[in-house]
């Protein structure tokens, strides 16, 4: 299938605000689907609640729209019961690592064969721009009007120490690059994670004196450093910067394979759905 054939054109325009980067990430997902050669029957998109969670409304693949923060829990069940499915999970920063942080670290640790795409827009977009666990220090949000006083998570590092199989970070405007990471993530067996830094124009941008979308895009771009350049920079130069690129790729057996090997060795019936 061609990438645009995955889009439900009758549902457009999207429900996102003007300039929101989510449309770009959705575009990357469809390009990754084309690259990975997936079909409408072998792929399921699992999402949580939030603006980004709405992405399944605009795509034709099977979808499971779960509760806030629990997308990975539902996805785990879907993958273990139907090991043949490609399970792609759409997470927001609030959804994936704030309310859902515990599910996130354990999905990484167990190395479940999922592809998680986390759009990090530095706040809770849907509910009015409150700070999340990734909001950068000093930023203004609706719940930190004097400047945020907590440090934010580096989610890729969190995924790495928790045991994820594959990790990449991108920014939403790099649509084709993001698509490559997502396609590569889908090809890996185990927990694959792609973080996409995404501008929230209505809340994060306006709250932080970036009135028009292009200003926010320029600022976001100024905060990232490609991995190759970062390798030559000092820790001081890298403060408050995010490294983009393919960050991590390690071998290791995923949970489902280990589980099935184990029950087969013990002669126990496999209840997972067979082809």
């Amino acid at each position: 299938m061609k990438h645009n054939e995955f889009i439900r054109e009758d549902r457009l325009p999207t429900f996102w605000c003007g300039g929101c980067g989510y449309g770009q990430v959705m575009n990357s997902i469809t390009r990754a689907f084309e690259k990975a050669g997936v079909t409408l029957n072998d792929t399921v998109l699992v999402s949580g609640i939030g603006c980004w969670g709405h992405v399944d409304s605009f795509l034709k693949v099977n979808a499971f729209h779960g509760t806030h923060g629990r997308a990975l829990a539902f996805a785990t069940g879907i993958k273990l019961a139907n090991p043949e499915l490609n399970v792609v999970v759409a997470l927001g920063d609030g959804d994936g690592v704030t309310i859902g942080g515990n599910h996130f670290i354990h999905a990484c640790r167990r190395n479940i064969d999922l592809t998680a795409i986390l759009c990090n827009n530095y706040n809770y977009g849907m509910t009015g721009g409150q700070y999340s666990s990734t909001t950068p220090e000093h930023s203004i949000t609706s719940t930190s009007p004097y400047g945020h006083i907590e440090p934010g998570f580096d989610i890729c590092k969190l995924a790495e120490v928790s045991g994820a199989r594959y990790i990449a970070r991108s920014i939403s405007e790099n649509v084709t690059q993001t698509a490559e990471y997502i396609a590569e993530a889908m090809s890996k067996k185990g927990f694959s994670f792609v973080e996409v830094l995404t501008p929230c124009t209505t809340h994060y941008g306006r709250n932080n004196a970036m009135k028009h979308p292009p200003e926010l895009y320029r600022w976001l771009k100024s905060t990232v450093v490609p991995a190759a350049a970062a390798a030559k920079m000092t820790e001081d130069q890298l403060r408050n910067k995010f490294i983009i690129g393919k960050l991590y790729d390690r071998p290791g057996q995923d949970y489902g394979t280990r589980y099935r090997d184990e029950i087969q060795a013990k002669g126990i019936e496999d209840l997972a759905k067979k082809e």
Partner: protein
Amino acid sequence: MYEVRIDPKRCKGCGLCADFCPRNIYDFSWGSVPVAARSDDCVGCMQCEVKCPELAITVREAAP
């Protein structure tokens, strides 16, 4: 020669296409749909088509 089409039903007027365009082919003011006023200058880099968050732009090679 390229033909640049913007679907006015999808466009939300965010201005990214005009901002990204390396050849400055768009006329744009806040609150309106951009116009590909200088499409003769378009080199078909596809930045606007690929980066438009609303998938509202198509750039196609036009018959000369």
